[in-house]
């Protein structure tokens, strides 16, 4: 029995021809002597005979399929997840479609827009209203200013905007013009018959000239000089 156990352990390799010559001889010798082991060996050989030893053959298509699937899996593993997402055919296709649709919609909206109306507006010319300042007291050495210095008018100030009289309150509708400046010579050269009143009169506060509403000659208004003559 012990011998049978040791010999039957070699039956599998014996059937496939994998034993050494000494082992093959030992098995053959035992089988000739032991009917049970001989029957066992025969049964095993018949069973292995019915188990097919051929396998299905890989077709060229199967080989290509394996190759491509493996390469695709390796490529996908090497790509980072983000770029895998963005390199997906579906994502790319969606992105292209979205761009095309957006361009088409923008073009349609632009085409349907009405052309803008061209409106010519007369932009009002803003003039700084000219305010006549009170002449300062000056010494003889200082020359009198020739031009009137324009300043920002105060609301109660008298404006002399020759071109926007309609903006003035009714009180000032007549328009006010600055007194035309005297020539320098007339200012600096004292009059021959200079009296005390001549000296005092110019020092009185200057009064602006009022222009009558009926006077439409804006460019050459008639100065209305107050009658201060003694």
């Amino acid at each position, binding site marked *: 029995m012990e011998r049978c156990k040791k010999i039957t352990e070699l039956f*599998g390799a014996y059937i496939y021809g994998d034993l050494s010559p000494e082992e093959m001889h030992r098995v053959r010798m035992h089988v000739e002597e032991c009917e049970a082991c001989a029957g*066992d060996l025969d*049964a095993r050989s018949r069973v292995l005979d019915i188990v097919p030893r051929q396998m*299905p053959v890989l077709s060229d298509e199967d080989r290509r399929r394996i190759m491509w699937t493996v390469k695709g*899996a390796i490529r996908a593993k090497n790509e980072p997840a983000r770029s895998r997402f963005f390199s997906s055919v579906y994502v790319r296709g969606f992105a292209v479609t979205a761009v095309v649709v957006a361009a088409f919609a923008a073009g349609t909206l632009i085409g349907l827009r009405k052309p803008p109306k061209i409106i010519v507006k007369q932009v009002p010319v803003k003039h700084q209203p000219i305010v006549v300042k009170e002449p300062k007291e000056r010494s003889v050495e200082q020359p009198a200013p020739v031009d009137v210095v324009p300043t920002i008018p105060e609301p109660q100030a008298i404006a002399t905007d020759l071109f926007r009289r309609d903006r003035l309150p009714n009180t000032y509708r007549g328009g006010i013009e600055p007194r035309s400046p005297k020539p320098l010579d007339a200012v600096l050269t004292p009059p021959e018959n200079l009296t005390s009143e001549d000296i005092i009169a110019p020092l009185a506060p200057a009064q602006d000239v009022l222009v009558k509403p009926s006077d439409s000659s804006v460019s050459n208004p008639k100065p209305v000089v107050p009658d201060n003559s003694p």
Partner: protein
Amino acid sequence: MSEDERTLVTAEDELLIARFQSGEAEAFDRLMALHMNQVFGLAWSVLHGREEALDAAQEVFIKLHSALPKFGSAANLPAWLYRVCLNHCIDVRRKSRNAVMELTEEDWDRLQGSDRDDPGWFVQNTELGEAIRKAIDHLPARQKSAFLLRHYDFLSLKEIAQTMGCTVGAVKAHLSRATAHLRSELSGYTGIAVGEVHDHGTL
């Protein structure tokens, strides 16, 4: 495959592994082409389905690509491939053991066609083939690995021992127990089967 052929294949494997490790990607394609048939065949012998075997072969080569950079120069590539393939297929088989095997439309078309010489057809579509498939499925994992690797002539006893990480004596013992198990499962078919097998021309 003879011992001389195995030696040649192993030498070429070492060369291709070295080339792949130095950056040549085409070396991997050549490795796949060299071992694709054997890996597919072993997968089929466990799973008994063409599609399942193709999927298993793809998984094995994907794992190979990840493991190749760490391969040593003296590594036995076929042994590694068969070990990974067997482990993967046995896992798949275990998970699908309770699943009902149904023939797909493609299977039915193949039945009508000229695939009767296909061993796969025989195993899947005859009572004897079904019994053989079940008997092999019921083998314990190590006996199944030793039996399949030897029965389909993938490896020698020494290479099977290297693949399974055991001695040659242990491989012989596994083979003996596997054949005893199959004998007990299929002894009822041995009288009738001889005639059927000859009709199909598989032996």
